[in-house]
């Protein structure tokens, strides 16, 4: 009855016959019958009428029904009387004009205020006598407790699904705005958001999602939650560690040179060729420091005569010992007994210091008598295997730049800058007090710093590149080095755990703890790389949650962490590269760290070899095999997802999609890992460093051409001429470069000339000339000044694009290598058959 009446009423208002077919109903719902008009809703009508009336008044439209008058009013000047706009319209107009400007000013003001905020802790630790910030122990601890309680409340408050989503949405929108503000306070705000999102996630995971079926899914589920808790902890520690990176500047030295202390420079070497050691030795001898207060020691564990002769010729002390106990650490400790200087500067034999190294760094030791160690960055002017094989050299920050750009500067705030074994200065007295360089572990450097901190000494970090060296050439070498670090850190964690024992502040414990725990990422990363397979293969639910709920919790966690890290680390590590770097190393690091945890005293020191040549392109099958296997497993997982989505598990499509997406992400990371394993050929044995300086080129006929240098290496210099020039083939030339007030000429021959660019190969130089060449090139104080200037700030979207592209390239290389391998085998077989 009612239905019938409703139907009739609807038919009347839509203008259709009640018996009309559905098609007509639908049509009339959207299209009116001819001649009929439907009225606007009343509020809209009112608004429109008001606006039109206002426009007519303001524009002075003569006859509102005539379109012509509207046009005239809009395009031409008002005709007759000069009437000011009505107050309302005036206000609207002003607001419209002023709003962006006003907002902009507010934003800028806010930005300045926020930036001004930054100075306070800086002044305390970077300028003042060191510990004021950490001295307010009571205030600090209260803050920590309050903050922790607030975080706990925020994490444990139950939300409906939509509430959780809305909170995330608000946070995300605010973050997108906040991340553009200058200064460090906005970064802290993003960290807070990230902490909130991640704490909610991990709380939810721990309390709501662990109701798993017993058996395999329980075991795997527990493994996953352990891995996630580990990552969460590392993230938290990382935020503490990097909360406020200090931008320490050099302190000037006293004008009276007599007050400058004596410095010994140690250059330990074991099996490196003389060609690698020479530049370092010459640059160390060329350091700007009073001659009678600088002694250079070449510590040769290889006991080679050529080294002895060379050191003595160029004025360095040559030191050998009877055994090679404790490798580098033992070598340095032996030298401590030989030399007498108040300070000890240590350079690995391939780290060439710039002339200003001592003058830039020593000021801090004179300012703070408790300072026992000052570290400067390790800088590499050749590409590491990642940069070389992926072609990202100087475009994407490399693996080390996060540590030296951010982590050490962050450590510095908490007085826990680590000693990194090279490019650092130590004060002799504290070092001897702790018994010299630590020998218990394979990472003697970090352990030495830990011992110094336990004695209450301070350490500083000065983030200015004051020395540069060669990066490890091949992936296997790189991996070997990281394995050593990981094992050493695990050893320290077992033998001298920073969380236990006396003498450290809470934050020092946290910083050291993070540095060590950080190296246990291997196993968790492998868990993440294989976790979705448990579902895709065996339909094991290792997370007990609906896909939508999982997404509502995990997305804020991931997105906010990305935003916070992108802001904090943006200049030193681009988004998603951490995953790529970790993925490559995870397999190799897992075993050594685990073994070192079980038996910290086992194992020996392995020397990282450098300066090698990779003769041809090749694919390092040995090193990439674990990843090839993982790729295969993940590929099968993706394939299995298709029937699961379409036939087998149609009732839980969300879960299938989520796991498939996770697997795809893993595949991208694995692709990058495999891409790194494809070693590209390295032609030149000495790396070219860009350098633009005025120079003069002396031709054999006595003419001198003014030109600019383009790059240099230990064996040659490339110059750009102002105009093309025909040079006599193989004639002896000289290239002169000035440095300070002096000008140095080096004999050379032209080897390649392309247009106006000429590659010059240096002739055999005298010792004096070699010293001058190092002073003009690697030893220049400004040699590495703008090195990172060209690397852009992180853009998460661009970055994910890059990682995707590298992943794809990795697969292409893998496919090519597979084809190559098969072809080679077939050829071999055919040859063998022919031989029979």
């Amino acid at each position, binding site marked *: 009855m009612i239905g019938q009446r409703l139907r009739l009423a609807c038919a009347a208002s839509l203008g259709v016959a009640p018996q009309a077919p559905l098609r007509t109903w639908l049509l009339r719902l959207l299209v009116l019958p001819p001649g009929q008009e439907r009225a606007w809703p009343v509020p809209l009508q009112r608004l429109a009428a008001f606006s039109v009336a206002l426009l007519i008044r303001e524009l002075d439209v003569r006859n509102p029904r005539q379109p012509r008058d509207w046009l005239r009013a809009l395009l031409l000047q008002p005709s007759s009387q000069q009437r000011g706009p009505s107050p309302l319209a005036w206000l609207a107009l002003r607001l419209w004009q002023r709003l962006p400007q006003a907002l902009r000013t507010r934003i800028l003001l806010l930005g300045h205020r926020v930036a001004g905020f930054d100075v306070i802790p800086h002044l305390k630790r970077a300028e003042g006598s060191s510990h004021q910030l950490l001295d307010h122990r009571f205030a600090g601890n209260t803050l920590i407790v309050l903050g922790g309680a607030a975080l706990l409340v925020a994490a444990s408050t139950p939300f409906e699904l939509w509430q959780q989503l809305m909170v995330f949405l608000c946070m995300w929108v605010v973050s997108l705005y906040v991340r553009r503000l200058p200064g460090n306070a906005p970064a802290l705000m993003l960290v807070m958001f990230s902490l909130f999102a991640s704490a909610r996630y991990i709380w939810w995971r721990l309390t709501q999602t662990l109701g798993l079926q017993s058996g395999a899914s329980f075991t795997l589920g527990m493994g996953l939650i352990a891995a996630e808790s580990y990552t969460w902890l590392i993230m938290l520690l990382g935020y503490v560690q990097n909360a406020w990176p200090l931008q320490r500047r050099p302190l000037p030295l006293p004008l009276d040179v007599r007050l400058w202390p004596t410095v010994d420079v140690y250059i330990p070497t074991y099996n490196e060729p003389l060609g690698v050691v020479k530049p370092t030795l010459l640059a160390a001898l060329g350091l700007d420091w009073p001659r009678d207060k600088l002694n250079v020691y070449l510590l040769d564990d290889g006991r080679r005569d050529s080294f002895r002769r060379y050191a003595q010729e160029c004025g360095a002390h040559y030191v050998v010992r009877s055994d090679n106990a404790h490798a580098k650490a033992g070598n340095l400790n032996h030298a401590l007994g030989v030399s007498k200087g108040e300070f000890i500067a240590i350079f690995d034999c391939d780290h060439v210091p710039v002339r200003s190294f001592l003058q830039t760094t020593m000021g801090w030791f004179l300012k703070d008598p408790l300072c026992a160690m000052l570290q400067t960055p390790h800088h590499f002017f050749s590409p590491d295997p990642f940069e070389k094989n992926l072609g990202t050299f100087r475009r994407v920050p490399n693996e080390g730049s996060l540590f030296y750009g951010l982590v050490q500067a962050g450590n510095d705030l908490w007085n826990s800058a680590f000693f990194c074994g090279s490019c650092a200065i130590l004060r002799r007295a504290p070092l001897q007090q702790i018994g010299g360089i630590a020998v218990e572990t394979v990472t003697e450097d970090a352990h030495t710093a830990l011992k110094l901190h336990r004695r209450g000494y301070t350490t500083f970090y000065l983030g200015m590149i004051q020395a540069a060296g060669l990066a490890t050439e091949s992936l296997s070498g790189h991996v070997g080095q990281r394995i050593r670090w990981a094992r050493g850190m695990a050893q320290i964690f077992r033998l001298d755990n920073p969380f236990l024992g006396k003498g450290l502040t809470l934050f020092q414990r946290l910083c050291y703890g993070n540095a060590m725990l950080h190296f246990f990422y291997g196993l968790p990363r492998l868990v993440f790389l294989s976790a979705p397979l448990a579902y895709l293969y065996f339909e094991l639910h290792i997370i007990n949650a609906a896909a939508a709920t999982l997404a509502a919790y995990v997305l804020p966690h991931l997105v906010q962490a990305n935003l916070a890290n992108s802001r904090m680390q943006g200049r030193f590590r681009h988004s998603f590269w951490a995953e790529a770097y970790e993925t490559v190393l995870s397999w190799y690091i897992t075993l050594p760290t685990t073994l070192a945890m079980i038996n910290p005293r086992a194992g020996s020191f392995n020397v990282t070899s450098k300066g090698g040549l990779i003769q041809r392109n090749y694919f390092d099958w040995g090193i990439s095999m674990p990843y090839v296997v993982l790729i295969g497993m993940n590929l099968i997982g993706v394939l299995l997802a298709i029937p699961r989505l379409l036939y087998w598990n149609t009732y839980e499509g969300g879960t299938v999609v989520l796991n498939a997406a996770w697997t795809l992400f893993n595949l991208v990371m694995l692709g990058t890992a495999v891409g790194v394993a494809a070693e590209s050929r390295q032609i030149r044995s000495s790396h070219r460093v860009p350098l633009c300086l005025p120079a*003069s080129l002396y031709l054999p006929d006595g003419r*001198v*051409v*003014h030109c600019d240098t383009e790059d240099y290496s230990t064996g040659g210099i490339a110059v750009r001429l102002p105009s093309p020039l025909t040079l006599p083939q193989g004639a002896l030339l000289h290239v002169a470069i000035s440095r300070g007030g*002096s*000008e*140095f*000429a080096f004999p050379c021959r032209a080897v390649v000339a392309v247009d106006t660019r000429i590659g010059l190969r240096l002739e055999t130089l005298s010792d004096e000339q070699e010293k001058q060449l190092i002073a003009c090139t690697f030893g220049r104080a400004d040699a590495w000044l703008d090195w990172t200037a060209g690397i852009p700030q992180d853009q998460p979207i661009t970055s994910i694009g890059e990682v995707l592209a590298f992943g794809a390239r990795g697969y292409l290389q893998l496919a090519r290598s597979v084809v190559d391998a098969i072809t080679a085998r077939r050829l071999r077989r055919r040859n063998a058959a022919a031989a029979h």
Partner: protein
Amino acid sequence: MDFDPQNLLGVYLGAAPPPEHGLASCAVRGTSWSETALISEQQVRLLPHGKLSSAERHRFEQELAQQPQWLQQRLAQIDLGDTAVCLIDAARAPSVYAEQALAAADCVLLVLGSDLPSFIAARELPWSRDGRPFAWVLNRADPRRRLEQDLRVLMRASLSEDAPLFVVHRDESVAEAQAADQPLAEYAPHCQATFDLQALGTWLLGLHHATAPAA
């Protein structure tokens, strides 16, 4: 202005043979020197020294010794205008010519050969700077020589600190440009000597713009 009895500046600017008449010859013979100025192809105006016999030169030098301001007075007679720069190429010091030039100059360029004797001579030279702008010019420098480094270190250490040191490299292009009768900057625009001289010229022009009265 060529203020060297060798009378060779005209040759460098493209006048061959050396001009007969000039400032000195007219002064000695009592004729007017206002007609003796030359203009080179590159619009450089030159007042030559003029050829003197041996007796004439002695007389001229005596006159100069008696009137230390002689050159300054002659210069004052020339209507140079506010924007002109007058470069006096004086004979090697110590000589009456160098003394006259030093007395007349607003700015002094002391040109040294790239060897130890000329450095010592320059250091011993008695003259008062009187707050005038002043620069050292190390001529025919050659960093390929082993002594060169030491010489420059020595120079920087012992010469007055506020005076810049300009280096003009020994460059075959200079001699070739003279032989080709072309200005160096046209003959070899990219050679090191051109570059060095341009640096010196830039410094001089900068001084000139700083001291010249605003137009």
